[in-house]
């Protein structure tokens, strides 16, 4: 196949692989009595898509966990007490009551000090933790404090504190920022049913939008368990690389070291692996905590913050690289990616070749680092997909006009011979990969909400197709067996309702409908119910798949 034209007129598939690619005549030669012919009626077919960074669990699972939801805009303490009691009644036992939310203002109006003293009067014998509406604090009762081992002697965490009585030093039951993690660590993990439903809906949705491989970055043993149960049920209709979380502040990862030293192989299948690790090296642009190579505009010294020392990262990359584990490093500032590339360089020096590591987000990259992606075999992953004008995207453009010109620099990495991929980073941006696909070609708002193009340079449609397909396969280390329509490769392809080369991309690519998704020769998605009741019946039916963002799909 011509690598510049990774789409085809006709293919023959056997045992999950392409056995021929080309014109109709060549296919006829391979036909036998078992052959099923599917006439696509001239529709456009291409390799399936690769979303290389996303989080269905973080997006959906909390909503499915059946946590307490007081359900009022400004609940009073009485409303909250009632909601807690109702919840306790409908969820009998001695388990945690966890949820949202309370409002400090209504407590002041009611002359009640929020904290364990009040919460104990409502619910003394089950642990309760409830967040405030603006996420600034968490109120817990005495039982919760006891289970989390928080006493007058407990030291405060970094970036947060335990509010205490000024005379006795006892915790008041109000926890700030970093202190939430102590409660999360004492709580049972997000329920399996919620994780499973979240991932299953993510998988369904992704298959329906033509995604054949993805990376779920940040997982723990419970998340892997949920993924495995979907896989075991034969519902894992795309390939998943799961990245074990290197941190405990998103959710605690109690079996991290067991997973890394080999327990991860327990989850391994043709569709699922956990041979990766994810961590947050720096912060985010919105709060100017991304680690830049020079101070933030208007600052003398402030360059943003690193959550881990460069030495920590270097030793970790060298160590994991040696063990065949991919390191996916959240680097939104050009200073963070610079240090990450240095760490990979050290791993190459010590270990030789090794794993293709991944620079996640890559919001800003230094010009001088563009060539290092190729040199060091590092994937430049661009996410979330907000490289088009929107209020949300503009909230991330504070690092100065000069730097903004290179925002999400797909073109720079590709021109320097490197591999660029994309990630939706749901829920930070929409899980529909087609929005990012269109806008990397246009850098314009798909709905015409803004007339001017966004910062940064567009790439060609041919380049974008590679970013969305074969480059993803490369970043998963499977480009020799998937990612393009070539004889011998896994028969993963998608059939579209339009020909991408016969349309004006702006406004017409993001709403592409995927009619059929084929994964390893199996039809997993059939939008028009063409194959209903037939031997080729799809795994997912069109009425099963949730829509998350109606507005953004048109």
């Amino acid at each position: 196949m011509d690598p510049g034209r990774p789409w085809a007129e006709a293919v023959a598939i056997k045992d999950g692989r392409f056995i021929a690619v080309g014109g109709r005549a060549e296919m006829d030669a391979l036909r036998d009595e078992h052959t099923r012919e599917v006439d696509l009626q001239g529709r456009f077919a291409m390799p399936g898509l690769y979303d290389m960074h996303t989080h269905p669990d973080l997006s959906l699972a909390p909503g499915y966990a059946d946590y307490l939801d007081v359900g009022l805009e400004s609940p009073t303490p009485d409303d909250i007490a009632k909601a807690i009691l109702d919840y306790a009644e409908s969820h009998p036992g001695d388990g945690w009551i966890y949820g949202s939310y309370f409002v400090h203002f209504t407590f002041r109006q009611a002359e009640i000090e929020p904290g364990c003293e009040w919460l104990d009067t409502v619910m003394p014998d089950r642990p309760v933790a409830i967040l405030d509406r603006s996420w600034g604090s968490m109120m817990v009762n005495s039982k919760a404090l006891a289970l989390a081992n928080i006493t007058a002697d407990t030291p405060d965490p970094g970036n947060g504190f335990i509010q205490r009585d000024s005379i006795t030093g006892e915790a008041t039951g109000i926890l700030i920022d970093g202190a939430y993690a102590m409660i999360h660590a004492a709580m049972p993990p997000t329920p399996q049913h919620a994780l499973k439903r979240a991932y299953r809906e993510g998988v369904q949705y992704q298959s329906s939008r033509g995604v054949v491989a993805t990376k779920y970055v940040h997982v723990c043993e419970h998340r892997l368990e949920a993924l495995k149960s979907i896989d075991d049920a034969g519902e894992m209709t795309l390939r998943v690389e799961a990245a074990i979380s290197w941190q405990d502040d998103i959710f605690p990862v109690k079996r991290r070291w067991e997973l890394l030293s080999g327990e991860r192989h327990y989850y391994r299948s043709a569709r699922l692996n956990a041979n990766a690790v994810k961590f947050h090296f720096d912060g985010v642009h919105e709060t100017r905590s991304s680690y830049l190579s020079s101070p933030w505009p208007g600052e003398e010294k402030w360059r943003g913050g690193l959550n881990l020392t460069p030495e920590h990262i270097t030793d970790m990359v060298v160590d994991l690289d040696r063990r065949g584990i991919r390191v996916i490093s959240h680097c939104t500032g050009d200073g963070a990616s610079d240090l990450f590339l240095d760490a990979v360089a050290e791993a190459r020096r010590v270990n030789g070749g090794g794993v293709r590591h991944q620079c996640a987000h890559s919001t800003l990259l230094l010009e001088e680092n563009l060539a290092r992606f190729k040199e060091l075999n590092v994937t430049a992953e661009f996410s979330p997909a907000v490289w088009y004008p929107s209020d949300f995207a503009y909230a991330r453009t504070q690092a100065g006009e000069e730097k903004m010109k290179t925002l999400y620099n797909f073109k720079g990495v590709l021109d320097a011979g490197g591999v660029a991929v994309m990630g939706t980073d749901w829920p930070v941006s929409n899980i529909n990969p087609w929005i990012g696909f269109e806008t990397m070609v246009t850098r314009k708002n798909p709905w015409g909400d803004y007339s001017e193009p966004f910062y940064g340079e567009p790439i060609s449609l041919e380049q974008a197709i590679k970013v969305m397909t074969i480059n993803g396969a490369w970043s998963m280390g499977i480009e020799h067996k998937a990612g393009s329509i070539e004889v011998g490769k896994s028969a993963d392809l998608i059939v579209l309702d339009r020909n991408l080369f016969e349309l004006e991309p702006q406004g017409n690519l993001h709403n592409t409908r995927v009619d059929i998704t084929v994964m390893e020769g199996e039809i997993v998605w059939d939008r028009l119910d063409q194959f209903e009741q037939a031997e080729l019946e799809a795994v997912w039916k069109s009425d099963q798949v949730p829509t998350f963002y109606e507005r953004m799909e048109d």
Partner: protein
Amino acid sequence: MSKKFSPIPVTVISGFLGAGKTTLLNRILNGDHGRKIAVMVNDFGEINIDSQLIVSAEQSMVNLSNGCICCTVESDLIEQLHKLINLRERPEYILIETSGVSDPSKVVNTLCYPQFRQQLTVDAVVAIIDADNFSSLDGDRRKLAMDQLSVADIVVINKTDLATTRQVESFRQQWLYPYARVFETQFADIPVELLLGTELFETNHSPSKSGHQCNANCDHNHNQQFATYSWESDQPLSLSKLRHALKQLPENLYRAKGFVYLAESPKHRCKVHLVGSRVEIEKEERWQQMPKNQLVMIGWNNLDAAHLNQALENCYS
């Protein structure tokens, strides 16, 4: 950092755009208080909150930043505070103006992080309210208004020409909670001493600033000036009674300071720092002399000395 400095007092001023914060800041900066005041305008928070709102408009849940520290911590504020603390000319006072769309409770929380405990102390949190504006708040602005008021020690109602008495009255009914300390003014004409409280307790400042000393026999009107009330006693107080009494002080009593002799901590002197509706009582070193209570209270216009005396005597354990 060395501990030879006492912590720098910080006052946080919140309020929506147009409520009068800028007028007020200019007044403070141009005033002749003779202090080195550093002013920070927390406008970075604006973008942060905006983007959160945008995310939530499009998506049904946005709890990603909820658990994840790297997204919620105000690292820029932390860095700026470090910078101020380490200036060669250390400021004597820090004023932080939070922008119209950021949640001042996050700023206050950050000031209380362990890393700042030896360096900074929250002096006062003041919310400036434009009564006219408040009648029509909805959605996220309404929620933010609640955040501003719930963290405020003193609520300043700033009347523009537009705000009628009725508007102020309806603001009070809809928005004020019990025992709020309120200061009503026009054109943000707020006495600097209200915001930079330490002035009021210093004897070496001109006496005109701190007004005259009221006593139990005082029965007259004091207009547009501060009134002081002092209380002394050698009987031990009950901590819970004291906390309760201090919470219920009249709405024009803005500050109190001093030491108390608590039954719960008889060997140690306890310090009282009251700003508006916030009361802090902290255990300090052992008594060097005979334990006793010594409190100074400051209000605007009239303080009812007899009433205050009674309220404090009710705290005997």
